[in-house]
């Protein structure tokens, strides 16, 4: 379904200019349209070289797919222009909301898990897909509280995917963080997710916030052992491309390559049945 193979890495401006001289190259890149739609001239050439030399998928932040208000069509059209310009076939976003009535929080906020919300998201997915002329992929987001719920998260996600026809971006770190924060078994979540819908997977880091007693999905730390183990468990059931997502405290590319190579070796080992 998705033209990606092997492992990927989130492309960040922090190391963009180092890619050419680096010996390390991921199998594919993931880019955040909002961060590259406007870019300094000094980045243009390196960005084009990176995305045109490797398969690239886009992963957005500001779509706010679950907002129970009007879609920002102007923004979606801008995303389409970006995807067309760089020949990017796949566009993923978060199953959450971040804005309401045109006011932005710039944070991924949790959706009420209700039947009606599923319908709202399903309609919204179709609206977005009509504009971008591509299939949308939705990621399971982290949430630190459930504002309102009629069902379990896994059922909510499965039904959203079923009803909307969207594919899923399975964020393994988010499953881990949510499972700890909300006391459920991450492995059970993986067992119950509709595997036929998963297009690709994210791996990322998080930290523990002592004040709230919650794990926070920061993308600013190395991936912890619990998340690596959950990936291994997941790969035995879901054979799709996986990538490292790092957004904060971004280390040099060579340091990220170490984490990438660890992920690659886990993938190979599981796929070879070792």
């Amino acid at each position, binding site marked *: 379904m998705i033209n990606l193979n092997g492992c990927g890495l989130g492309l960040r401006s922090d190391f963009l200019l180092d890619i050419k001289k680096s010996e390390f190259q991921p199998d594919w890149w993931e880019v955040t349209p909002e961060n590259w739609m406007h870019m300094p001239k000094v980045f243009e050439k390196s960005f084009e070289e990176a995305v045109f030399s490797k398969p690239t998928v886009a992963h957005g932040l*500001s779509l706010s797919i679950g907002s129970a*208000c009007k879609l920002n069509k102007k*923004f979606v059209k801008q995303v389409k222009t970006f995807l067309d310009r760089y020949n990017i076939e796949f566009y993923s976003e978060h199953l959450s909301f971040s804005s*309401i009535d045109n006011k*932005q929080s710039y944070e991924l906020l949790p959706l*009420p898990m209700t039947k009606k919300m599923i319908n709202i998201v399903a309609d919204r997915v179709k609206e977005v897909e009509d504009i971008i002329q591509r299939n949308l992929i939705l990621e399971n987001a982290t949430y630190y509280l459930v504002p*309102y719920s009629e069902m379990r998260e896994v059922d909510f996600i499965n039904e959203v995917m079923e009803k909307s026809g969207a594919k899923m971006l399975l964020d393994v770190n988010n499953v881990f963080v949510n499972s700890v924060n909300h006391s459920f078994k991450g492995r059970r979540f993986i067992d119950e997710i509709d595997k036929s819908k998963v297009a690709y997977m994210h791996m990322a880091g998080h930290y523990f916030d002592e004040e*709230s007693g919650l794990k926070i999905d920061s993308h600013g730390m190395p991936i912890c052992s619990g998340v690596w183990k959950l990936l291994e468990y997941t790969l035995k059931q879901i054979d799709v491309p996986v990538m490292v997502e790092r957004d904060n405290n971004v280390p040099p590319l060579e340091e990220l390559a170490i984490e990438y190579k660890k992920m690659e070796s886990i993938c190979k080992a599981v796929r070879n049945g070792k």
Partner: protein
Amino acid sequence: MANNKTKKAKNSIEKDVQNRFFDIVINQKDNPNTSAYGVYQKLVFYRFEEIIKSTFIEFSKYISEKKLEKSIYEFIKNPPSTPFVWQIANDYRKFVKKQKLFHKQKYLYELLYFDWIEVEIYMKEYKKIKKPTFSWDNSYFLSPWSRIKKFNFDIINKNHDTKRENFLIIYYDYKIDDVLFREINQFIYTLIKKANKKESISKTLELLCKENEIDFNEAKEILEEPLKELVLLKAIYKV
């Protein structure tokens, strides 16, 4: 009033839940029921703070942490609509000026403008401009990668709280890929402001000279070199 009630009644649970959640997070309201709201409030605050501090580097040096924090909390209550995080800074700049948050230190508004324009020009999509040449017969225009601005404080010499009327052209330097500025005199500032597509730069200058009772030929001689330089820098370009 009745209409509002009807409208509100039509809101779904989903919209009500989202509105309530958003309101608590954006208005940084206390919620004793769960500390998780506090987590969201902090995450939102940090997101805004990070962009504001990284954009307004010079400004951040001249404002206390407490005052800055307070202004960010106020700003979050009036959140921007742009989907692009880097543009938050421009809305913050406009917000604090409109709300007169730093009216006792008015130079801060100019520092905010100065820092923001640098980012805005830096992020502007590059388009090739034809080989720049200067002729008095051509029409010239401020390039999309330049701004001219009158400042009332001496911020370029870092005497921020000293009043000094000065005029700057801020532009993208293609040789070093950086945003630079240079001070220009009031006459060039006005000439660039008045420059338009319909008339040559010579004609614009002529009219300006008449208005100010200045000898046209003398002005032409004095201004030719600085204008040539601005054209070569692509700070102004031929229409």
